[in-house]
C-alpha cells in the first residue's frame, strides 16, 4: 500500500486487542472479507484502489473494535465502515488528482443504491447462478486471478500462456457474467 494514501491514524493491530478479542476480531473479519471487498469495489472499481481502501477499512475496524456493539451484525457494521472509508477515499483522490465524480452524482448513486437494495440482492443471487454455470477451469481462474496481477502471471505461466491472454479471458468472463445476470434479470444486454 502506498503510505501517502493512508490517512494518519494511531493504528491498532489485532495483537493490541485484549486477550480473546484478537481471535474474535480476526474470525469476524475473515468471515466477511468478501462482503467488505464487494462494498468497496462498488465505489472505487480499480483493484489496486480496492486493496488500499480495504486495508484502511481493516485498520479502522481494528481501532474501533472495542466499541463494536455485539448485539449488532458485525457484517453490517463492517460494511458501513467500508462504505464510509471508500467515500472518503474518493474525496481524497479527487482533491489529489484534480478530477473525479462530483459529490452530487455520488449522492445520486448512493440514493439509487439504497433504493434498490433488494434488487442488488437478487442480482447477487443471479450472479452466483451465472458463476456456477462457468466451467470449473473458469471458476478456478476467477478465484485465483481476478483482480490479482501477480496471480495472473503465475496462472498463465503454469499453463504456458501469456499473462495478457489470461487477462483477456478474465475480461471475457466478466462480460459474459454481466450478460448472464442481465438476461436472468430480464434486462437488455
Amino acid at each position: 500500500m502506498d503510505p501517502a494514501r493512508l490517512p494518519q491514524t494511531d493504528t491498532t493491530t489485532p495483537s493490541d486487542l485484549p486477550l480473546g478479542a484478537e481471535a474474535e476480531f480476526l474470525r469476524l473479519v475473515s468471515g466477511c472479507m468478501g462482503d467488505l471487498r464487494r462494498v468497496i469495489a462498488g465505489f472505487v472499481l480499480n483493484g489496486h484502489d480496492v486493496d488500499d481502501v480495504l486495508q484502511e477499512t481493516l485498520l479502522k475496524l481494528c481501532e474501533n473494535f472495542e466499541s463494536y456493539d455485539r448485539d449488532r451484525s458485525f457484517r453490517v457494521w463492517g460494511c458501513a465502515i467500508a462504505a464510509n472509508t471508500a467515500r472518503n477515499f474518493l474525496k481524497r483522490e479527487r482533491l489529489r488528482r484534480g478530477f473525479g465524480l462530483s459529490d452530487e452524482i455520488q449522492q445520486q448513486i448512493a440514493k439509487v443504491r439504497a433504493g434498490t437494495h433488494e434488487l442488488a440482492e437478487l442480482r447477487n443471487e443471479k450472479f452466483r447462478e451465472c458463476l456456477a454455470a462457468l466451467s470449473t477451469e473458469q471458476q478456478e481462474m476467477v478465484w485465483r486471478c481476478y483482480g490479482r496481477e501477480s496471480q495472473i502471471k503465475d496462472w498463465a505461466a503454469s499453463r504456458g500462456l501469456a499473462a495478457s491472454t489470461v487477462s483477456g479471458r478474465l475480461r471475457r468472463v466478466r462480460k459474459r457474467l454481466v450478460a448472464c445476470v442481465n438476461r436472468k434479470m430480464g434486462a437488455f444486454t
Partner: protein
Amino acid sequence: MSDRDARRRTADEIYEIVEEGCDRPLGPEATARLEELLRRDVTAIQDFLGYVDVHASLLAVSATDGPSAVAERIARGVRPAVSRDRNVWRARAAVALTVVAMAGVAAWAPLGLRPAGQPVGRVVALSDGAVWEGDPFAIDDVVGRGDRLALEKGFVTVELADDVVVDLVGPVATSFQPRSVWLSRGFLTGRVGPDGRGFAVRTEDARVVDLGTEFEVHKDYAYGTQVRVLSGHVEATLRDADGEDTKVFDLLAGQAARLDRNSPDDDPQGVIFDFDAVARVVRGAKGKVRRFAGAAKPLSGPVVGLDFRSGVYETAANVLVVPERTGVTLDRPLPLADGSVLEAGVRFDSYLLHFDVGRGSFTGVAGRGSIRFDGSVAAVVTDSADLAATDGPFATAGSVFEPADFRGVDDEDAVRLDAVDGGTVVAFDLNVTAGRALDQFRVLVPSRP
C-alpha cells in the same frame, strides 16, 4: 433513434467505461464522460451499478482471506512509525482461530409420503439448496403419473423406466407421464438408453421424440421451444395452437432448432438459448455420479473457494457430494492407512463427501445414503491424515479444510465400497459425536474421457 435504442447506447457506453475502470484508474476524460452519462437519468445509474456489482462480486469471490491472511494484511498496512513499538503480528491468532462461530442447525423436515398415481420414475438426485414451487420431492421419492415437478432454483434428476434419465434445472415446471414429460417452461435434459427409444418431451409448441440419444430442451413464452441434440437423433415436430403438426425436423448430434408456434416462419436454426451455461451447472455438480440416494446431495453453486472447516459449511442432515479435480495424476505412489496404495501415473477424478451438522444441536443426526457411479470406484479415502495428504492434489482451488484430526471417518461411522455392480456404489452411514460434528471422506474414480 428510439428511447430504447438511446438507452441501450448509453448502457453500452457506461459498460465500456466501467470495463476500463476495472483495469486501471479512469482518466479525466473518461470520468467526465461517465458523469455526463450518469446525469441522464436514474436508469443510467442502475445500469452503472449493475456492471459495477458484477465486478465487485468477482473481486469478492476471488478474496477468501482467512484469519491469518487478515492479520498479515493488517500488519502490512501499519506504517513502521506507528507499529515499531507494538508487537508484530505472529500468526498465533490464526492457530487459535480454528473454531468458527456456529449457527444453529437448519431444520430438516422429512417429507411425507404422497399419494401417487401409477409410478413412472423416482428422484435420484436433488441439489443442495433446491427450492420447489408447489409440492416438494425428496431423494428416492417415487414420481407418479401426472405428478407435477416444478423448481424455482436448483436441479433434480428423475430416473424413469426403460433407461431414461431426465434432469430438470430451475426455474422449471413439468409433469410426468409414462414415456413422456410435459414441459410447461424451463430447461431439461434427457438421456435415453436403447430401451427408451420413443420417449417424448412435449411443450405447447412442440413434440420432441427421442430416437436413442441425449438431448436438451428449453421452453419459454418469448422464444418458444428450443432443442439441442448432444448425441444420437431426435424428431422435433412444431405444433400449432390447435395441436396440429405443422413441421417436422430431424435433428442429429450437434444440431439445434427453435420451434415457436407464435412465429412458425422464424428460422428454426435461430437458437438463442445458452444451453452450455445451464447444462454445465448440472454436469459440474453431478460429475460422474449417476445416482444419489438417502442423504447424499449434489452441490449447487460454485465449486471453488469453499470452506470445509468444522462448523463453517453446515449441511444439516445432508451429506454434500462435491466434485473436485478431474484427471489428476500422482507423481509418486501414495500409501493409505488401510494398506491400499494410490498408484502413480493413474488418472483420477475426485469427489469430496462432506457432512457437518454444526455444533448447535446434533443429537441423533445421521447421514445415511449412497452414491452410484457410472464406472468402478478406485479408492475411498476415509482417514484424516490420508484426507490431508490428498487435499493438495485433488481439492479444487481455494478449498479450506479442517486442520484437526477428526474430519475423517471414525469408529461411529461406516463407509463401504459395495461390491454389487462391480464396485460402482459407495454406501455410508455417518454419525456425529459430541465435539465432532464433522465427517468427510473422498472418493476417487478412474478418469475417463
